[in-house]
């Protein structure tokens, strides 16, 4: 006898359905939905969600929560030859509760970075797991290739690519300071949204330093297949790097 399945609410196409009863123009609602990945056209039961909308929402939240707690698969950064370091954090639980430890390295780690990595680079690339290792593995390869092409073309001196485990954004200041980098670029997994843990951000700063405020950083966010595609983001970062190198500043000081 054939097994019967209840339809899978986690499938992305479930979000594409129009659930409004008797819309004035179904065609227009479909078009509006195509223009955004916001959950439009869901209709209502009284003033509340329809059951399908509610169940899909709960499923999407469930997978996002699980994504936060999954350790990053490091085979990609290994394959790409990244130099690996870890912050003062020892595990995921501590990572979530202690952002202070996720911003710093032990003295030994700092010394190791100084010993093993290229000093005084024009461009220092850092990859950080942040709150989603999924994001790194989904976007890094495409974005990295474009960035490296751009930097080669500009004849920038590129530093040793570094991967930081259990990392917050501020590790970029410590690494930049240790190596005397001009432009530091950090790719980091964002806190996951519903249904996806694949969104990545890039933080950039000129002479990134723990002594400067957070507003020193220029940010490109929402890098993933349905946001800014990684290839496009890579090109954007190359362009921004040129500006930072030319202007010798970054963040709010830089009005673009």
């Amino acid at each position, binding site marked *: 006898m054939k097994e019967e399945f209840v339809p899978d609410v986690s499938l992305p196409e479930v979000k594409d359905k129009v659930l409004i009863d008797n819309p004035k123009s179904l065609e227009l609602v479909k078009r509006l939905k195509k223009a*955004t990945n916001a959950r439009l056209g869901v209709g209502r039961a009284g003033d509340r969600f329809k059951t399908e909308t509610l169940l899909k929402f709960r499923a999407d939240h469930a997978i996002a929560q699980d994504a936060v707690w999954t350790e990053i698969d490091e085979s990609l950064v290994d394959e790409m030859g990244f130099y690996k370091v870890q912050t003062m954090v020892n595990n995921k639980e501590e990572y979530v509760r202690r952002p202070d430890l996720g911003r710093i390295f032990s003295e030994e780690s700092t010394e190791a970075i100084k010993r093993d990595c290229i000093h005084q680079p024009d461009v220092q690339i850092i990859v950080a797991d942040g709150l989603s290792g999924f994001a790194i593995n989904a976007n890094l390869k495409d974005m990295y290739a474009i960035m490296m092409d751009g930097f080669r073309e500009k004849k920038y001196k590129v530093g040793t690519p570094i991967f930081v485990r259990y990392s917050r954004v501020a590790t970029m200041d410590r690494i930049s300071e240790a190596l005397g980098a001009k432009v530091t670029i950090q790719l980091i997994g964002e806190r996951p949204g519903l249904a996806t843990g694949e969104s990545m951000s890039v933080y950039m700063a000129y002479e990134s330093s723990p002594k400067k405020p957070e507003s020193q950083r220029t940010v490109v966010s929402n890098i993933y297949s349905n946001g800014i595609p990684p290839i496009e983001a890579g090109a954007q970062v190359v362009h921004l790097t040129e500006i930072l190198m030319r202007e010798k500043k970054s963040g709010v000081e830089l009005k673009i």
Partner: protein
Amino acid sequence: MRLKTTLFGHTYAFKDVKEVLAKANEEKSGDILAGVAAESTVERIAAKTVLADMTLEDLRNNPVVPYEDDDITRVDQDSVDEEVFGRIKAMTVGEFREFLLSASEKEIAAIRPALTSEIVAAVAKLMSNMDLVYAAKKMHVEATCNTTIGKPGTLSSRLQPNHATDDVAGIMASVMEGISYGVGDAVIGLNPAVDAIDSVADILKEFKEFMYKWDIPTQNCVLAHVTTQMKVLERNLAPMDLMFQSLAGSEVASRAFGINVALMDEAYAIMKERKSSVGPNFMYFETGQGSELSADGNHGADQLVMEARCYAFAKRYNPFLVNTVVGFIGPEYLYDGRQMIRAGLEDHFMGKLTGIPMGCDVCYTNHMRADQNDLENLAMMLTMADCNYIMGIPAGDDVMLMYQTTSYHDAAALRRLSGKHTIAPFEKRMKELGIFDEQGNLSTIAGDPSVFISREQEIHLRSAV
């Protein structure tokens, strides 16, 4: 001032007001992270007991960041009405709690000019959750931009049509659906993905055009950094009804946000001159417990008192909207649904007591131990507390900021549950458009964005078939 007490045979001695304030706080992961939280539940109650015995003058004289070191302390202290303060300074915090619970709305409004952030935070620490709702419900703060928010019997909402890449068509799709739920009487306000002058101007214009075309009485805003919005105004690029900025509670933390009091004064002045709105209130601020520690600017104080200081900062600019983004910052500051709910009630109460038109972004992130049920609980409680406004977003899912906030549906359901209304001219227009029925509830056609189909679109779609 007495800094010692005994409880159950143990002595609890505190070194200063700042320590008492911190340890009297309800449990928050951010205070533990800061190393300022009470070490046991009994110590927490001991601190509350000592705090209840302090006078309002003790608190005024001991700001958590010294006057000489911090522009926000100076703003707060300098704004105190000394004559009113003279009348209440001998009151203890415990007596002040009882005053707020038993006084009339008018009596509370009369003593507001005498309060500093430390006083506001202190009394919040002595209040239970229901106390916070009970007292807040007596404090209505109205403000007028194009329309007037905060009147008793209203619950407004911000339409938050965020989009991953600021695509204008995608943003407007969310605006159309939001208005079709009667959401957006507080503001149509976008968090931009890219903080750039031209795209901010384009989106402001698009909102304004929609408001004109469909005659929607509300406000437009794009929540870029204040310096970007100043550039838009300087170059006369777009109509701007509301100017936005995120605030922090100390000068050091504000630096991380790229602002200070002088810059905000400048922003306020240019907005006053060039705004497209009509009323005296044209600023919009967001805040949230924990951002000061996150920016190394908490000065060893707890996150509740630092949050209260944001409201003193906000008050200087007679804002139209102020809301805490309560669950956005993450589990290292508010660990779970319980802490998020507590913080939301505290922030709303403190904002109203300070005298600002307070709303709340009732929200949580995916790395917090919280879910939709916690969010709905807080939203219902705040509606009962007469919170000015909440957010409204498609099915509660912000696809740009990657967190969950209240949905278009939640705004409509909360109005129906509480018998509240949107701002009157907005409600009138929703009735004319057929979106609301005679009672102001959603009609059968509500929730359909294609009611905003234009003549041209209709023709275009028909010819495409």
